[in-house]
């Protein structure tokens, strides 16, 4: 699960201020988070963050090569992994930041 941290006072303070001085995102850049994914993500061309997905169907509707399909409950899954061109359309059109088709580095 995502660790939804409670806001402590320091963080609250940081969010409320207009002028921020801390500008060091480097440490945060690659974070590993426990996410509910199905199958082996290493073999899949797309990651789906099921915790954040709201089953709106946009990624499935607009994937140009038909990689994705919907389950009966509406949630997306990778049906044809070999067809993915890593065009990132799903990525850009997902309103919930719940899918990424970016090429793995």
């Amino acid at each position, binding site marked *: *699960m*995502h*660790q*939804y*941290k409670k*806001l402590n006072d320091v*963080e609250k303070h940081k*969010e409320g*201020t*207009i*002028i*921020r*001085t*801390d*500008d060091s*995102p480097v440490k*945060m*850049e*690659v*974070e*590993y*988070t*426990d*996410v*509910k*994914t199905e199958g082996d*993500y290493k073999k899949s061309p797309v*990651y789906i963050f099921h*915790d*954040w997905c*709201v*089953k*709106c*169907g*946009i990624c*499935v*509707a*607009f994937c140009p090569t038909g990689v994705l399909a919907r389950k009966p409950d509406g949630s997306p899954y990778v049906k044809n992994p070999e067809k993915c061109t890593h065009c990132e359309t799903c*990525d*850009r*059109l*997902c*309103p*919930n*930041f*719940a899918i*990424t088709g*970016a090429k793995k580095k």
Partner: protein
Amino acid sequence: MQKIPQKIIHTRYLRHRKKFPHVWCPGCSNGIVLGAIMRAVDELKFKRSNTAMVSGIGCSSRMPVYVDFNTLHSLHGRAIAYATGIKMFKPEMDVMVVTGDGDATAIGGNHFIHAARRNIDLTVILINNNIYGMTGGQYSPTTPTGDIATTTPYGNIDPVFDICELAMGAGATFVARTTAYHALEAQSFIKQALEHKGFSLVEIISACPVIYGKLNKKGDAPAMMNAMKKNSISLKAWEKLPEDKLKGKIKRGILRNEDRPEYTDEYAKLVQKVQGGK
């Protein structure tokens, strides 16, 4: 359950641990616009400490809650007034305003036109979903004539505002329009608007499937986005088409991009002059 890498863009610019998942309804375009803004900012390599996002009140205006910049979630309609304050005090800062159609053109209409007239260097990203989403679906100045809202149950008789024309009429120096379906184009327009010195407006036609879509039977989110794809015409194609084909269509593209003296520059010059060049 397994450990997978978070997308870099999340961890770099979003309050992804504290504030996500966000509260917008399933299929709402606001999230797509947020993504486009993040990607544009990432391309420009803006510093988080030198960037500010300001908003008023509304669904779209909830966006600053989710980004890790200097943020200000202010009063309904007053986002541009607050942003003007920030820009005047810290002209070196990149200040963007995220606002809705009601927020910017109904209650905040005056701030909007006068900021455009002054040509102050703000980037206004206006998410136009044709309705007041947050308060349950009252009609806004951009609700199409004839459409249903909770306050126009028999159809709206008001003519609509063309927001881009309004901004150009008021003197904005960068004006562009696109839709949430054209996310890549939105990203590029936002990037250019952020780079532009002077008042810039990017209007993004977006889908509110839960209120506007439901009241007007527009279908689900993918259907509404397909309609954006079908009903919008890029500027290049627009100029070639005969008039009868353009009725009811959305014109997409950069409608104006010009230079004019910028307000904070002029102000600095005035200060220098009054102080006798000291």
